[in-house]
C-alpha cells in the first residue's frame, strides 16, 4: 500500500485534490482513515468488503449534518457511529460492520478531521463494530457546510420480533435515562444565544445495555432511541403503529435541571428535544422491574414512565399528579435544524 509522508505535504487543510482518487487521496485515506479504523477487512482495500453473516441481519443508514460539529459531550464523528449502531441495537441486532462516507468541504482543517476520525474510532470500541468500507469526496468551498458523514450499518439479529407494531396492552414503558440532553445542548451552543451551561449531549452507543437486557431473557416488544422529534415523536409513532394508547406519569419522566432551564427560557418541552444516547422500551409488565434494574446500572435516571392501555387508541396521554391529563402531541415542525 503506497503511503505518502503527510508532513512532507505540509497540509493543514483538506484539499480538493484529495477527493480525486489519486495519490493525494490515498494519503488521506491511508494516513488518517486506515490508521484509525484499522481492521483486516478494511485494509484489504478492495472495491467492496466481503463479509460473512450467519443469521438474519438488520441493515440501516443515516447521514449526519449536525451543527456545530463539535459540541459538549461529542462531535459529528461520535454521533455518526453511535447513531447508526444504535439503530441496529434498537432492532435487537448486534452491530457488526459499518460503511462510512465523508463529504468534506475544501479547506476543512486537517486537525479537526483527525479529531473527528479519532472520535469515531473510540466510539466503535463501545459496540465492537468495524468500519469495513468507505468513501471520501472533497467538494468546493460552499458546496457543503464543513463536513457531512454517512454511515450504513449491518447487525446480526439476536432477538426476534422487536417492532413498533408489537406493543401490547399492559406493557410497561421505560426510558433509559433523563431526556432531552442532546437537543438542549445543541440549542445552548448556538452562538447567537450566548448562554453558558454545563449541559452535555447524551450521545452514546447503546448496544452494551441492550445486550445485557436481551441476555437476561427479556425481549422488549419495542425499542427506539428518541432522536429527532424526541420522546414525543417515538411514543406517538408507537401508539399509531401498534394501535394502542400510551399513558405516561408526568412526574416519572426524568429531566435534568439544566434541560428544564433551557425549556423554561425558550418555551420548549423536554419531550420534543432530540436524544442521541437515550432509548425508550416497551416490555411485559412482569419484566419491568428487572429491566429497570439493568438500565439503572448504566444510568441512575432510568425510570418506568408509563404503560400501554387502550384508553385513546393512537394517542399518548400525560397524567399529572393532581388529576388532570393532556395529550402529548407530535412536536410541531423542525424545532431546531441540523440537530443530528
Amino acid at each position, binding site marked *: 500500500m503506497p503511503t505518502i509522508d503527510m508532513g512532507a505535504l505540509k497540509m493543514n487543510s483538506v484539499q480538493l485534490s484529495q477527493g480525486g482518487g489519486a495519490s493525494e487521496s490515498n494519503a488521506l485515506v491511508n494516513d488518517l482513515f486506515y490508521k484509525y479504523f484499522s481492521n483486516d477487512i478494511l485494509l484489504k482495500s478492495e472495491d467492496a468488503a466481503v463479509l460473512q453473516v450467519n443469521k438474519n441481519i438488520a441493515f440501516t443508514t443515516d447521514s449526519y449534518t449536525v451543527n456545530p460539529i463539535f459540541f459538549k459531550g461529542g462531535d459529528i464523528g461520535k454521533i455518526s457511529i453511535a447513531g447508526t449502531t444504535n439503530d441496529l441495537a434498537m432492532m435487537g441486532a448486534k452491530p457488526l460492520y459499518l460503511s462510512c462516507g465523508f463529504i468534506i468541504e475544501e479547506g476543512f482543517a486537517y486537525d479537526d478531521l483527525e479529531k473527528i476520525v479519532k472520535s469515531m474510532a473510540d466510539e466503535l470500541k463501545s459496540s465492537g463494530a468495524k468500519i469495513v468500507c468507505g468513501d471520501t469526496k472533497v467538494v468546493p468551498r460552499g458546496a457543503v457546510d464543513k463536513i457531512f458523514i454517512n454511515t450504513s450499518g449491518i447487525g446480526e439479529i439476536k432477538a426476534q420480533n422487536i417492532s413498533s407494531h408489537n406493543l401490547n396492552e399492559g406493557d410497561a414503558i421505560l426510558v433509559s435515562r433523563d431526556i432531552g440532553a442532546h437537543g438542549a445542548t445543541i440549542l*445552548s451552543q448556538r452562538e447567537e444565544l*450566548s*448562554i*453558558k*451551561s*454545563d*449541559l452535555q449531549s447524551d450521545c452514546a452507543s447503546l448496544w452494551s445495555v441492550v445486550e445485557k437486557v436481551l441476555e437476561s431473557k427479556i425481549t422488549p416488544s419495542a425499542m427506539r432511541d428518541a432522536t429527532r422529534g424526541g420522546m414525543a415523536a417515538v411514543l406517538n409513532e408507537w401508539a399509531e403503529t401498534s394501535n394502542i394508547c400510551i399513558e405516561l406519569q408526568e412526574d416519572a419522566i426524568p429531566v435534568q*435541571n*439544566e434541560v*428544564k*432551564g*433551557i425549556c*423554561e*427560557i425558550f*418555551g420548549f418541552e423536554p419531550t420534543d428535544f432530540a436524544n442521541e444516547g437515550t432509548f425508550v422500551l416497551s416490555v411485559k409488565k412482569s419484566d419491568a422491574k428487572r429491566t429497570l434494574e439493568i438500565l439503572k446500572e448504566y444510568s441512575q435516571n432510568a425510570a418506568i414512565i408509563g404503560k400501554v392501555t387502550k384508553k385513546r387508541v393512537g394517542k399518548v396521554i400525560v397524567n399529572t399528579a393532581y388529576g388532570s391529563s393532556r395529550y402529548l402531541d407530535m412536536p410541531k415542525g423542525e424545532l431546531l435544524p441540523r440537530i443530528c
Partner: protein
Amino acid sequence: MCLSIPSKVEKIDENNMATVDTMGVKRDISLDLMADDVQIGDYILIHVGFAMNKIDKEEAEQSLRVYEEMVEAMQSQEDSP
C-alpha cells in the same frame, strides 16, 4: 411573549450587565431597567434580556408557607373520615 422566569444574580459588571443563573443555565442580561440596587444572590425576573424587577423573597416564602399549611389541612381532613 410575556414569559419571564426567576433567575439568580451571580455577577454584576461595570456596564450594568449581570450574569444570571436559571437552573444551571447562565446568561448575561441588562440591569438598565432596575432603579433599586441589585445584589449578588438576588432573585430577579428576566424578560427579553433585561431584569424587570426583584422578586420579594419574603412574600414568596410567606406564600409557600401558606400553601404548606393548606396542604397539611387538606391531608389531615382526608385522613380523618
